[in-house]
């Protein structure tokens, strides 16, 4: 990278950060207004979240002149890269931003026009479409110097990242995490992942152009652990009635734990969020006014209909208080051991919910139903996310028949608006809520 480009990049980031800070201060000075008469006041931290996420993507615009850049899957052992000062892009997060901005279908069409089937994950299509066309709502995505795909979320990433490697001519590092069929992963499977992580170090160092320092890796692992623990605490505060932070809010507030895991600023952010949530509890402020029923959400959100869902449920006094999806970014915190960063990463990254059996997911839902005193479950049958949706029909049946927990299967897609029909979704949601209402 040239000195000129580096200096221009530094200046661009500094200017952009100042503008975003100003924007945040202005937002904070304005009195917050509730998005709906049925919902509680918005979180005061929202402008800070917006600033943090916008700053991350702003830095991305200039990242190629400042850092080595890696594109990684959401469940990738990112600590290794953070310790070597990589700027990390999460294509799934970027795709979710495209989803909430309702530009995902336009961008995905760029991939579809090149022959990628609509049966593929809409995150993959959105990402590939963005890579092929350069279209993005975040300004510009930096070119990757390295690609890191971990199979703990799905097998699609194997092929998706090969396409990216081919397109960008960047090396692809693959971490294969064997599926956990039973309660515990076998020792040899964890050892297999650990060896892959160790074997990855020379390649990552070569791309980074520097040696990995153990102390840096431990520091990043500690920050990851602290942020994940704080996030888990935030979610667990929803054991209170009324729930202070809805799962809809969590879908937004989870952005830093995914894409800025391992950064000090992320720890500070979740500490501040926890303080705000505690203050809400003290003041008796709920995410939904007059909360009457509490539900669990399973699977990814429907990014382009978050507000619709929140308001539809809120109007009936129903709060989404927990989700298996947001929970996934906190539940593994105890496994992270900063003193043994690679060995503990092998355990942490083999155990995400999507790398475990459908029976395990059912157990997780049942335990959440008890912890959060839930009245029912909405299972989003997500056309795009096959591993998450697989088994939901059986999970639903068993929730109802064996545990007496009402459950609804709602068909949609996390990013592709063409797979969502509001009229049909409303009919199902409406009937489900009436059914809950009639229960004693």
């Amino acid at each position: 990278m040239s000195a000129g480009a580096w200096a221009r990049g530094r200046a661009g980031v500094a200017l952009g950060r100042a503008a975003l800070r100003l924007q945040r201060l202005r937002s904070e000075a304005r009195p917050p207004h509730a998005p709906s008469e049925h919902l509680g006041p918005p979180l005061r931290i929202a402008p800070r979240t917006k600033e943090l996420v916008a700053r991350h993507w702003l830095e991305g615009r200039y990242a190629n002149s400042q850092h080595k850049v890696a594109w990684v899957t959401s469940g990738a052992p990112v600590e290794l890269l953070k310790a070597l000062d990589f700027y990390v892009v999460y294509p799934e997060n970027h795709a979710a931003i495209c989803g909430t901005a309702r530009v995902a279908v336009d961008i995905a069409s760029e991939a579809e026009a090149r022959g990628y089937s609509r049966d593929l994950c809409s995150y993959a299509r959105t990402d590939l479409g963005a890579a092929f066309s350069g279209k993005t709502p975040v300004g510009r995505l930096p070119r990757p110097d390295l690609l890191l795909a971990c199979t703990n979320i799905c097998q699609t990433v194997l092929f998706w990242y090969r396409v990216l490697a081919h397109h960008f001519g960047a090396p692809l590092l693959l971490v294969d995490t064997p599926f956990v069929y039973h309660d515990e992963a076998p020792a040899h499977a964890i050892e297999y992942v650990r060896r892959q992580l160790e074997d990855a170090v020379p390649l990552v160092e070569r791309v980074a152009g520097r040696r990995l320092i153990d102390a840096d890796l431990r520091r990043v692992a500690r920050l990851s652990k602290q942020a994940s623990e704080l996030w888990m605490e935030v979610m667990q505060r929803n054991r209170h009635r009324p729930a202070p932070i809805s799962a809809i809010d969590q879908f937004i507030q989870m952005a830093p734990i995914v894409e800025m895991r391992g950064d000090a600023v992320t720890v500070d952010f979740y500490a501040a969020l926890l303080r705000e949530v505690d203050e809400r509890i003290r003041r008796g402020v709920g995410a939904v006014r007059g909360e009457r029923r509490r539900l669990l959400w399973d699977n990814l959100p429907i990014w382009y209909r978050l507000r619709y869902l929140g308001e539809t449920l809120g109007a009936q006094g129903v709060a989404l208080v927990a989700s298996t999806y947001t929970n996934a970014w906190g539940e593994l915190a105890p496994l992270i051991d900063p003193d043994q960063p690679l060995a503990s990463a092998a355990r942490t990254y083999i155990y995400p919910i999507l790398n475990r059996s459908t029976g395990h997911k059912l157990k997780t839902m049942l335990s959440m139903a008890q912890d959060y005193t839930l009245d029912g479950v909405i299972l989003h049958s997500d056309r795009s996310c096959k591993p998450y949706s697989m088994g939901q029909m059986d999970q639903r049946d068993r929730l109802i028949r064996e545990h007496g927990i009402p459950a609804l299967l709602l068909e949609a897609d996390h990013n592709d608006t063409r797979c969502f029909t509001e009229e049909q979704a409303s009919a199902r949601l409406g009937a489900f809520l009436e059914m809950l209402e009639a229960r004693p």
Partner: protein
Amino acid sequence: MSALCALGIDVGSTTAKIVGIDSLGEIVWHCLEPAEPRVEQQVGRFLSLAQDQSPDGPPLPLVATGYGRHLVHLAARKVTEITCHARGIFRELAHGGTLVDIGGQDSKVIVLSARGDVVDFSMNDKCAAGTGRFLENTAARLGIPLAQMGPVALASKEEVPISSTCTVFAESEVISLLARGVAVEAILRGLHRALVRRIVAMVRAAGLVPPLMLSGGVAHNQAVCSLLEEETGERVMPALHPELTGAYGAALIALERAATPGPAS
């Protein structure tokens, strides 16, 4: 005729219905028309017809259901078809069990407790296979009156399998079968089988709790009833007024609300 005490409107995708009930919850008046694109006008006409039934009385309590329910502005409450069908059938047959409602653009399977509460339900998704529209389309294509579809299908001993459950593709399949000289009766029987199997898959997904009850205009079709019994091994109990079940349930809810006044929701 006893005095009207409450009204229920069901604005569906194919037909619009209004039911008036007396103080005992018995149906004393109803009107059924093909659904019009200008829902509000049609609803206005229905309501003035209802007013004609009791010209001197106060405005009657009204609950709306069906896909067009949000356009019934005078309704005190809008309730989904699931709840209304459950309420209507429970009043008519006084039974828990499994209700199949085959509507114009969707079919529903509703599991009712012994007290008549909805325990679970499932609906067809993303596709109109297994709905009344499936039969309507093919009836039009074959030039057979809708009311004759069932008897013609049952009269046939032959049956050709229809592999497509998609309403549009099934139509193409029917055309090619006709072109190959296959008898209309055998095609019709195959079509009914395809529809019923699609419904039975939904029934099994929701979990069949006997008895099996049937509502929606398709319940008049004997072939559907008979094949449903054959496929499930359960006797089918059709609703007394199958096409009015949803509107009837809505009227019963309106009557109940009028008896226990509370905040409108």
